[in-house]
């Protein structure tokens, strides 16, 4: 067993860990990046955001090729070569992983493959895949161990046909019938992929709504479309049990008007993710891990140990890659003793379904729940020229404003490319723009971004392409 010393150890190589390692190296620190995966990138790159988006792109192509029939463009049914599709997805991942690896090398970041465990507040024990152990002593540390799909014991029946998101992304086969447990963003995104590939998808959600955290105005158009693509969406329904049989996985469902026993070829458990705060020896330090598994940190992302920071999923909600990346920069500046805080007020949330849903800042339901008075303006995409050319008028752009100052407090969008459009909303909220700033900035025509401008215009009466009859 060897013992080596490093100035900074970053534990976890995901979208929090690797930017932290890079940034610290750029600031002249000697950095070791410890990651238990096969190359950097974390869940996001290997088993999350990136592979799912590659597959969603394919799903969209399939759906559009079918919808094109309405415009006089008829294609045959797609021939799906699953091996090649899987290869495409893997090549996307590999390309990015290799790129990150090279960027790390160029910066002199020392990459160490293995699983880390704290022995004390200055020593990390790293066990590599061959079982070899290295003791790494460090001056400073950034913990970025991320999160894991949550699979409650009742669903752990030790059958490969019951998958979490990682399993679903492996694309072992195209199941005839797929049960998606949980109507959150992961379930709906993967459900969309499998439905496009030909699976009959049933979504079961325990709560009364899909995407419970999102504004109903945004979910409505998506749900309408998903109802056509999916075999069934059961809300207010609980999956009581899963039983493996030769014919498939038998699910016991309890919900009003829901057939209680149903057979599926595969089941995807997508009910949420749990932070990886436990099991890495933090009890041997003063770092505080709460009951949910999140590490307690301050505004700089500093833990109760002044030389140890935590970022990303393990440091708190929302568990989003881009939040982790921003926290990485904050933590490194914190380590350097700079005056810095994670003070962002607009963290975009994007659901990459079709239509996409995206929002940032204060949302209408949240404002209502808090009894806060806000001004809400909506611009329906039925009035957008660009949306019409795409044959996708179901979208909606919504601004949540301060009723007095007209400051943009939040933005919510549903529609094609909402995930790209929300960037303007983030800038508006984060820089405290007012509605007039949006209304009086020129937006290129014809683009979907015009809906932001026209929503801004609607604050002052009428938007050019939407007329609301005057009351009177």
């Amino acid at each position: 067993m060897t013992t080596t010393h490093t100035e900074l150890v970053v534990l976890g190589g995901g979208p929090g860990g690797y930017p932290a390692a890079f940034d610290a190296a750029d600031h002249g620190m000697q950095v070791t990046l410890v990651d238990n995966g096969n190359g950097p990138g974390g869940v996001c790159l290997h088993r999350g955001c990136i592979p799912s988006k590659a597959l969603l792109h394919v799903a969209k192509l399939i759906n559009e090729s079918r919808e094109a029939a309405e415009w006089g463009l008829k294609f045959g049914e797609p021939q799906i070569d699953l091996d090649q599709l899987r290869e495409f997805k893997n090549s996307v991942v590999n390309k990015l992983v290799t790129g990150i690896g090279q960027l790390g090398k160029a910066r002199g970041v020392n990459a160490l493959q293995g699983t880390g465990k704290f022995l004390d507040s200055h020593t990390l024990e790293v066990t590599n895949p061959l079982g070899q152990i290295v003791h790494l002593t460090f001056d400073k540390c950034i913990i970025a161990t991320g999160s894991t799909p949550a699979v409650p014991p009742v669903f752990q029946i030790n059958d490969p046909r019951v998958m979490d998101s990682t399993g679903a992304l492996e694309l072992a086969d195209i199941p005839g019938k797929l049960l998606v447990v949980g109507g959150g963003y992961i379930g709906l995104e993967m459900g969309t992929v499998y439905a496009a590939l030909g699976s009959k998808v049933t979504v079961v959600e325990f709560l009364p709504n899909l995407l419970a955290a999102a504004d109903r105005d945004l979910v409505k158009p998506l749900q309408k479309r998903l109802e056509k693509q999916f075999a069934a969406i059961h809300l207010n329904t609980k999956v009581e049990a899963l039983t493996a049989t030769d014919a498939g996985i038998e699910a016991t469902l309890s919900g009003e008007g829901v057939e209680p026993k149903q057979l599926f070829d595969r089941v995807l458990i997508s009910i949420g993710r749990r932070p990886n705060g436990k099991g890495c020896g933090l009890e041997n330090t003063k770092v505080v891990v709460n009951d949910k598994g999140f590490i307690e940190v301050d505004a700089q992302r500093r833990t109760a140990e002044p030389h140890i920071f935590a970022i990303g999923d393990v440091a708190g909600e929302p568990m989003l890659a881009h939040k982790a990346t921003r926290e990485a920069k904050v933590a490194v500046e914190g380590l350097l003793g700079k005056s810095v805080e994670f003070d962002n007020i607009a963290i975009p949330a994007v659901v990459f379904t079709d239509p996409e849903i995206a929002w940032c800042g204060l949302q209408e339901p949240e404002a209502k729940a808090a009894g806060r008075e806000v001004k809400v303006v909506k611009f329906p995409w039925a009035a957008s020229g660009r949306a019409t050319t795409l044959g996708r008028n179901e979208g909606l752009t919504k601004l949540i404003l301060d009723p007095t100052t007209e400051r943009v407090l939040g933005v919510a969008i549903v529609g094609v490319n909402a995930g790209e459009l929300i960037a303007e909303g983030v800038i508006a909220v984060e820089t405290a723009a007012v509605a007039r700033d949006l209304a009086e900035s020129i937006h290129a025509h014809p683009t979907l971004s015009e809906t932001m401008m026209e929503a801004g215009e609607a604050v002052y009466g009428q938007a050019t392409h939407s007329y609301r009859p005057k009351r009177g």
Partner: protein
Amino acid sequence: MATEFKLPLLAEGISSADVAELHVAAGDTVEEGQILMELETDKAVMELPSPQAGKISSLLVKKGDTVQVGQAILSFDAAGAPAPAATNGETVKAAAAPVAEAAPVPAAASRATAAPPASTNPWADGKTPIAAGPATRRMARELGVELAKLTGSGSGGRITSEDVARAYAAKNSGGSGGGIAVSPLPDFSQFGPVEKQAYTRLQKTVANNLSLAWQIIPHVTQHDLADITDIEAARKRFVENAGKNAPKVTMTAITMKAVVACLQQFPHFNSSYDPHKSELILKKFYHIGVAVDTPTGLVVPVIRDVDQKSVVQLANELTTIAGKARDGKLSIDDMRGGTFTITNLGGIGGTAFTPIVNYPEVAILGMSRSQKQLQLSKAGDLEERLMLPFSMSYDHRVINGADAARFLVRLASMFTDPFRLLVEC
């Protein structure tokens, strides 16, 4: 369940206020509209009426506290009280059920750093994050400028990086001349007993404004005497005959009218200078500020459109607004938009003084106590005349000395020869 009452937006650009006086206590039952407290902002003292009738279950602020807009100030006991009526113009509603997110305290944390959990939602509990972009927030943090205390100059009250730079400069010049850092004062108690009196916000604002004016404006003061023997006699006759309930026509009211006649003849005295754009902004309106000494400090209420009002009307308005000023009831609008200021110390005494221009105006007229003096008449005889001393300070960037002398000579001549007042005003 209790309902919270949060500080509503008091006026545009006002983000916080100090509690000057509390009129209620926990357990009190109040009527809708009843005054709960007096709040002091940078500009004025305001009364805060109750948005609803009900029993106050708890008071969340005390005298002297600084309260942010949107901050809960008290809670009403909802039992037996009517639902909170939405008062018109209210921008902040009482939260129905504020869900306090209990911040778990790290048990083993030996240091105080691990304060709020990272998941703290910046929008929770009806909070509105400070209106400033990330670059501005960073700049403020690095310069040690507290954003919550700044008033943004951008649209919607947005704080710009220029606002931060200005606040930083003001902080580090200590409000003294030329951006020189002010070293801390010695501990005077080593020399003898002292008493410390905290400045109110109004006093602080006045101090800052005066420092600013003194730093920015190259001041020159021009003095002159006006022979007011005849006009004072006429004024007295008028007042005596006007009856008891008539407004008291004072020398200040007459001076306002005369000043406006001069401003019309010398338009650049009724202007502001913008050094950033190198341009003079000539104002086509005549709103005259009148400095009023009040128990809580100096305020300058503004009388609007003096050119369109008679001396009697002005006298009337002066009486009203001076009363309001002394009672601390001036609104922010009462003190905005002045184009020229008059400060009259004649009631107290003195022969001359050098007033500080009320920035961003460019001139101020000071009046001292009128005195009987022996003057030579045209015939060469000694006569007793009543002379009023004028001291006019001006911004030498805008007004040159010859024009200042001309302005003051013209003004004095209107008093010496009241017929001119009649003809020219």
